[in-house]
């Protein structure tokens, strides 16, 4: 059953990523250089919608709180984020969109995947020395959410109810998605229609 769900949800995810232009490096780079923010608006809206539905579903008792999976906070999250961001802007791909882009026929995405496999291997080899630096040690409580989610196995950074906060933040993401201008520089050239 799990495998069937992986096939269905995975295929939907890949399909939607392609449909919002996320498999196209030109769209990604125009977003990251703040020239064309249509994709950014879609991403912000998606986070907001996902958040509202998940926390709303939890409050209604329809969504299993145990399905949440919160990652640990540590200094390496920020450093890794910087590295990922630099490579993302260089190539116009992130891991998920890179594999999808290769599937749409983009040759450069194959080189991205090859580089990615080597980068992941380099981390596997250097992991013990990275760990020894202490940048993987949990900070601010480690696996924490911003509020305290009822029934979740994670601590909250703040005591306020995490599900209510999740819905409020979700609404803020939606509002920001609408507020962000599609072309901040008044750029009249639309993103390539593919």
């Amino acid at each position, binding site marked *: 059953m799990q*495998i069937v769900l992986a*096939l269905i*949800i*995975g*295929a939907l*995810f*890949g*399909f939607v*990523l392609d449909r919002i232009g996320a498999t*196209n490096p*030109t*769209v990604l780079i125009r977003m990251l*250089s*703040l020239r064309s923010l249509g994709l950014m608006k*879609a991403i912000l*809206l*998606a*986070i907001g919608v*996902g958040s509202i*539905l*998940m926390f709303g579903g939890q409050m209604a008792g329809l969504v299993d709180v145990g*399905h*949440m999976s*919160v990652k640990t*906070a540590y200094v390496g999250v*920020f450093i*890794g*984020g910087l*590295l990922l*961001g630099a*490579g*993302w*802007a260089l190539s116009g791909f*992130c*891991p998920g*969109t890179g*594999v*999808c882009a290769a*599937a749409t*026929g*983009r*040759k*450069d995405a194959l*080189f*991205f*995947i090859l580089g*990615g*496999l*080597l*980068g*992941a291997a*380099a981390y*596997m080899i250097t992991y*013990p020395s990275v*760990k020894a630096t202490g940048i993987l040690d949990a900070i601010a409580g480690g696996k924490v*959410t*911003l509020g305290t989610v009822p029934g979740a196995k994670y601590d909250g950074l703040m005591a306020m109810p995490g599900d209510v906060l999740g819905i409020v*933040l979700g609404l803020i993401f939606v509002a920001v*998605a609408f507020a962000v201008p599609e072309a901040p520089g008044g750029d009249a050239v639309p993103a390539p*229609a593919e």
Partner: protein
Amino acid sequence: MTLNWKIGGVALGLVFFLAVLLVKPIGVSTQFVILDGIIADVVNPELVTKTDDGYTSTNAYLAKSGGKYAKSVANLLNYSFIFVIAMMVGAFLSAMMRGGNGADENKLPAIHYANFGDTPIKRYAIAFVGGFIVLYGARLAGGCTSGHMMSGMMQTALSGYIFAAGAFAAAVPVAMMMYKKG
């Protein structure tokens, strides 16, 4: 045939919600490690071994957290690995339905052409180096754009916000400096 951002954003949000409703939050970058492990285990079958209560590895990273990565390497038909294969199928179907990217785009994307001309080798080198940095960074961070940024911020995870701050702090200046045209 790019979807309007409102429809696209709602569709993407529904997919992330569906994942957490039925199984668990979406993540991708771990599967680069799993594929590396599968390849390395073919070359050196000693890499991943079965223990009394699961799996372990001679590689410290595969062996961490009770050997959960080692287990995925040993059992290829697991949810997360199949998920990424299915993503490729979904993207392929979408691309076919819209008539593909076109031969020029598949050779090199328009933004590269606008900035560096018809230099496919240069593009492939940039994509390769970019891929290396992206995956090293994602593994150091413990997740990527999907797992940390989207799934993480959706769940109000502190780590998701830290990751997004780092990613955009680097991505915006690099994109602005590298690609002035197009």
